[in-house]
Every structure is written in C-alpha cells, then in structure tokens.
C-alpha cells in the first residue's frame, strides 16, 4: 500500500522539480542586442476615471517614440489605494502609478519609490512649488506631480443658500433647517474631521525623525471637538459619502463638503444653482468665528523601485504629467493642474470648483499624516456622529492622541 503512495509522492516530487528547481529567469525581457528592436514592457496603474485619458496618452507616447516597441498594460487602481495595492506584492505591481501625495512618506520609507532622475530640473521648474514639496522627501524628488486639487471645500445650492449664508456654518445650518434640507459634512471620516482642528491651529504632521506630531488634545483641540459635538446634533447636519452627495445635492442636500471629483455630479444636479465656496467659519463655545481648515493634497505619479525598466518608466511618468497632458487632464476630467503654465490659464482660474479650492488654500494644511491617524480618528469621529457622548471630550481626545503616538 505504501507503494502507490510512494509512486504518487515521487510524481509530486518530479512536478516539484519542474516548479521549484528550474533556475528562475529574472531580469529584463527582450533581447540585449541593442536599441533597434527594443521591446519595453510597462504596467501603469491609474484610477477608473483616468483610464480613458490614460489609454489616449499611452498611444501618443508610443507614437512619440517610434524606435521602441512599448507593451504597456494598464490597471485600475485608485490613487488612494495605490500604496496598499503596491505593497501587497511590489514585484508584481505597476511600474508607473498614480498615488495621493500623503502616501509618499510611507512609500519612500518602505523603499517602494525610485528617486526621480529623468528630467528632474524640468519637473521642478514647471510645477507649483508646493507640489514639488509634496513630491519630495528629505529634499529629494520622488514623484512627478500630476494634479494640485486633492482637497475639500463647499458645494452649495444657490437657490437655498446665498453667498452670505455660506460664510458661516451657523448660516448654512439655519437656512437649511428652514428649507428642510441638510448639509453633508462627513466628520465621521478622519479626512474631514481634521478641518475643525486645523481651524483652531492644531498640528497633525510627521516630524523629521518620523514620529507623529499631534496635539488634538490641546485646549484648542477641545474647543474644536466641542464645536463638532454641537454641529452633529443639528437636524440640518448629516454625514455621507460620494454616492449620498451625488444623489442628494439639489434635493435633500443644500450643501456638501467634498472635493473636485464631485464637481461634475454637483454641476449636473444643480444646473444653474451650482455654486462652490471656501469652507465656512464655525462658532466656538465662547462665540468666536473660526475659519475651518482643510487638507491640501496632490496627485503624483511615481515609479516602482522594483521596476525592471527604470528609465523608460520615468520617461512615461514624465510624459503623463507634462504641461500638455495636465491641460488635457483639466479639460477631460476637470482636475486642477499642478503645472504653473496650465494653472495660470483663464479656463482654470474661472472654474467654479477650482476657484473655491484656491480660496480655501490659505487655510489648508499639506497632508502629511501618520498612518495611524486614519483608523484612530475614524473611531473618534464615528463616536461623535453616532451621538454617543458617554465619554467626555478631553478623555476621548487623550485616547486619540495616545493611539496615534503609541501606534
């Protein structure tokens, strides 16, 4: 009886030999003969909304480089997911990928990003200074800036709220209550939650030693949290996501705090009543008006450190983010450019959503956040929006700070 077993095991071993012991072929595909019939394989990751434009740009890139045969594969990975997906298996991940700039620190520390060595000076010269700062770490450039519009501001319904109303949170809530509508402000989401704390001048960033700098439990932080507590109990307040915003703006929602990616949806739903503005001010317990802050962010294009075609990958990343293609990205997708020339065109300056974002930018903080913040702050925000006030605010904030500093 052992015999058959033995034979089968032997078969498995033989199969194992084929799988396990054949020398692995690593290294670039294509022949090393020379540039005549050079074949370059690349994989690009971008968000679903970018795909159409991306396909077009890739064709243009191929046409611009006729002496090389490019085999470029595209994958759908949103900017927000890029780090997670890349780190699942960095070797199998894309060579060139779009990502949100707040992931840069983690990606650099994990050595997933290649330093920019192709047209570095040109990139630095042609993009907004803030976007270059966002794409750099320790004064080295690690990515190509693609957009400068990752941030949030206020979309509102002109027929319900006047320009005056949207100056203050109280004004928005009062008018919305009258009209039986609601303001969507997802403070259960860590990203939006920070708005009140930044308004009060709190700090949330990462120090040069890689340690979190975080003081939401300061006196100012407590004032901010108390203001959130008041807001979430207002009948005209609600939380929501992109789907709820797109479905509700113009009907059940009078206004919503979100970003440029919802501009098209808002424009379509509101028509002539479409309007956008910087975030309003909120009222502290002592009656002061404080301007809400926000995160500002950039979409970047990075090159995987484990790519087999570093030079070609960087050339493609450079191409995807050059002036002409940022202009196209604005035209097709309405995304705000980081390229100085495109940024200064009339079309960009007159765009309602981008103008609101620009008004908000003096009150925005570049998004460089310790990773522990997201989970811990979501728990804090959800506790408030679930109207669970069983623990007092200072204790909750202390817990939040400990979770982030001790993570």
């Amino acid at each position, binding site marked *: *009886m*052992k*015999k*058959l*077993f*033995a*034979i*089968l*095991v*032997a078969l*498995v*071993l*033989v199969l*194992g*030999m084929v799988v*396990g*012991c054949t020398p692995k072929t*690593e*290294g*670039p595909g294509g022949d*090393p003969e020379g540039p005549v019939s050079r074949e370059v394989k690349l994989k690009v990751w971008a968000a679903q909304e970018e795909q159409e434009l991306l396909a077009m740009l890739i064709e243009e890139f191929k046409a611009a480089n006729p002496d090389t045969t490019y085999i470029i594969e595209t994958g759908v990975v949103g900017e927000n997911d890029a780090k*997670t997906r890349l*780190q699942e298996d*960095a*070797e199998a991940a894309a060579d060139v990928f779009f990502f949100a700039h707040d992931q840069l620190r983690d990606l650099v520390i*994990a*050595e997933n990003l290649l330093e920019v060595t192709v047209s570095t000076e040109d990139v630095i010269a042609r993009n907004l200074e803030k976007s270059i700062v966002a794409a750099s770490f320790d004064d080295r450039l690690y990515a190509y800036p693609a957009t400068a519009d990752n941030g949030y501001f206020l979309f509102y319904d002109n027929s319900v709220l006047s320009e005056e109303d949207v100056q203050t949170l109280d004004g928005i809530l009062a008018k919305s209550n009258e009209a039986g509508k609601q303001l969507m402000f997802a403070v259960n989401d860590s990203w939006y939650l920070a708005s009140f704390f930044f308004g009060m001048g709190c700090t949330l960033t990462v120090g040069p030693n890689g340690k979190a700098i975080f003081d939401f439990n300061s006196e100012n932080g407590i004032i901010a949290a108390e203001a959130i507590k008041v807001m979430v109990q207002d009948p005209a307040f*609600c939380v929501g996501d992109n789907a*709820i915003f797109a479905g509700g703006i113009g009907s*059940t929602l009078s206004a919503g705090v979100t970003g440029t990616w919802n501009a098209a949806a808002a424009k379509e739903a509101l028509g002539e009543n479409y309007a956008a503005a910087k975030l309003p001010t909120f009222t502290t317990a002592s009656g002061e008006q404080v301007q809400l802050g926000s995160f500002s962010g950039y979409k970047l294009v990075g090159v995987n*450190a*484990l*790519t*087999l*075609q*570093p*030079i*070609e990958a960087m050339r493609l990343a450079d191409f995807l983010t050059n002036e002409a293609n940022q202009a196209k990205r604005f035209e097709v997708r309405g995304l705000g450019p980081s390229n100085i020339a495109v940024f200064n065109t009339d079309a960009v300056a007159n765009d309602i959503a981008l103008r609101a974002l620009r008004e908000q930018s003096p009150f925005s903080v570049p998004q460089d956040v310790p*990773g*522990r913040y997201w*989970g*811990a702050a*979501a*728990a*804090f925000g*959800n*506790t408030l*929006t*679930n*109207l*669970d006030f069983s*623990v007092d605010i200072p204790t909750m904030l202390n*817990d*939040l*700070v*400990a*979770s982030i*500093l*001790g*993570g």
Partner: protein
Amino acid sequence: MKNLRLFLFTLRQRIAKLRFLSWLSIPLPGIVNIIYGQYIKGLLFFLAEFWFWIICFPTFGLAQLRQLASLGETPRRAVLQPDGTAILQGDNSLQILLFSIFIIAMAVAAILIWVAAVKSARLAEKELQVGRRPTSFWQDLKNLFDKNLHITMLSLPTIGVIAFTVLPIIFMICLAFTNFNGTNLPPTKLFSWTGLDTFRQVFGSSAGMNEHEAVVAAKKAYTFGSLIGWTLIWAVFATFLNYIFGMLISLMINKKGIKLKGVFRACFVLAIAVPAFVTLQFMRQLLMEKGVINTLLLNWGIIKESIRFLDNTLLARITVIVVNLWIGIPYTILITSGILMNIPADLYEAASIDGAGPFKKFTNITLPYMLAVTTPYLITQFIGNINNFNAIYLLTQGYPLTQKLYEAGQTDLLVTWLYKLSITSQYKDFNIASVIGICTFVICATLSLVTYNITSSKKKEATFR
C-alpha cells in the same frame, strides 16, 4: 532466454537467503529492488531519492534553509544596468519562508519514499526466501485498481489536502511568530522571527513600552477579549434562534390541515434563491439612518427621530442577529421538515392518549428526536457562525466604531477583525491576524470536539437505526 531468467531467479534466491542484501537499501534506496528484479520500481525509488538529495536539496533547498533562521539579510533592490534596464537582487522573507516550508515538506516526502524503498526491498527478499517472485511493477499497478483500490482513491485527496490545506496552514501559523506587518513588508523590506512577541501583544503585555504604546497595547488586548465575547454571543444566538424558529415554522407548515404546504415552503425557499450578499446589501440600504424603513416610519409619524439600527451598539448587534434569521431560517426549514415527517405518528397518538398537550409533545418527542439527528448540523452551524464573515461584514462592516477597540467596531467578529487587520488596515498587522486565526481555530476545534463527543450522535454512531 528462459534459462537466463531461471538462472537469475535462482541467483536472487541464493542472495536473498543470505539475509543481508536488503540492508543495502538503507544507504542505496532502490538498488536492492533492481537487484531483485523489480527494475522499474527500483529505478523510480532511486531516481526520486537521487534527484531530491543530490540535485535539488544541495542547490535549491540548502540555500533556502540556510536563510530560514534569519529570513533574509539584504532586502530586494533593483540594480540599474548600463542599458537602462534593471535586475532584481536581494532576499524576500516571504519567499524564503514559503520555499523553506515547501522544501521541508519535500524532504519529509523523500524520507517516506526512502522508508518505503527499504520496506519494499525487505518484502522482496522475504518473497524470494520462500521461493516466490517479487511482484512486478505491472502487478503492482494492477493491484492498485483491484485489491489496493482504496490507496488509489485516497492518495489524490490526501496529497491535495496536504499541499493546499496543511502546508498553507503551517505557513500562516509561522507568520504569528514573525514581525510581518506594515513596516516590514517584503520584498523591499525583510521581516524576521520575533518568537512570542505577537502573542504577548494580543494578550496584553506592555513590558518595556512608553505610556502611549501601553495604551495601544491595552487596546489590542481589550479588543481581543471583547471580540471573543461578542463572537460567542453572536454564534449562540445566530445558531439557536435560527434552529428554533426554523423548526417552529416547519412544524406549523407540517401541521395536519394546513393547505398549500408546497406554496409555503416555496415561499421560504425563495429567500435562499436570492444570494445572501444581495439580501444583506439590500437590508443595509433599508436600515440605514436615511434608509427606506426610517423614512417611512418618519413620514407616517410613528417615530420622531431616525432609529439608528446600524449606528447604536446594542441596536446594531440585535439587527445583525435578526437579519441573519432571514437568511438562516429557510435552511433550517429545509433540513427539519424532512426529519419531522419521519417521526412516527404513533408516538404522538400515544402521547395524546396519555393526555400530553402540544408543548409536552414538543419537548418530549419532537425536540429529543430532532436533537439526536441534527446535533452535528448544529455544531457545524455554530462553527460556521463563529466565522460568519458575510453576515457581519456585508451588513455593518463591523460598525459602529468605537475608540475602545483597536481597528475594529462593535459588531466585528474575530474573523472580520482579522480581515480588517490584514486587508483594510493601513498597518497590515499580518502577524496579529495570524495569532487571531490560531486562537479562532483553537476555540472552534475545542468547542466542536467537546460538543461532538458528548452528543448521542457520536455515542450511538454504530447503533443508529
């Protein structure tokens, strides 16, 4: 030709009578079989061992095993070549661990084959000593489809289970003893063995930590304890409520005098026809703060404020249990109605004559009968509910969140927490997830073994009629 074979046979018999040659297969597996005339089998034994121990193990295997202790020294990097392309160099902890386990499994298999070779040589020798020819390869093959058929049938599933279940489980268990998390992600970083550190974290040791780290460590430990509690509560309610309500409904449908039994049953089975995840998504939409149910109740003036079905801890927990009834009861109806019809009617008649009411009949006839038959089903349901990812994750995603828990919400089960830690969390605590996996396995294995062994299904296994 015939003479030659006879000569060889006699020669082999002579050698066999010396009773020492078979020992030669300990250093040289397969050779003795060849000498005794089992050419193909001997060759297979020899080739398998030769290939593994001489070719594969020293080159590929040793390289992996040597790195197993450190799990790699230099992280993987792309090294730029003059032509602008790059090649990859360096180690990958995950691959080292994976290949090491694979090579160890292969070594165990090779040793088993070696043992089989020795035994087979001894057997051939014994056969020759009593004057019989050792079985030929073709006879062996024929036997595999005749008197050794059970081996043929069982070996493929056995190998499959070892390759696709046992080895991955060993791999996962190993991860619990490493620091494989978001800060040490291969291939660009390496992870290493950390012994029982992860277990200490989960069970709440805060030795050598600063004030903030101790808060987080305490939170992890609290989360673990709290989620075990809720997981067990959930499993008990989800299992037994489904069972009892399902049985009651099928009793009602089975009752004499009920018309259109088939229609009623079909109604309930319809709930199975819709995939559970669709139902759960739908229920989620219905129950949301601005969902249909709340909107209707508000419009009818029955409630003044939205009911927070999914945002309030207690309500959310009740909601998941109740919604799970919708999904679970139809299955219980299907399973129990057949068994209920099998209970001899004379038992009930006799009970009626003795003056038993419906409740007495249920507790003294129906329930014992059902329990005897369905306990194994209940156990699998209970274990299934401990690991019921869909019902929780698709309905509430573990929400509501609370600061008391680490990367988890109030309706999270151990298994959904595990998912969050390893898939959705920013920090990818694979090692903690592995510890949770081990603990869940221990809980499930203990509970099912203990309960199964005290059930009548087990005790009367042989006597069941």
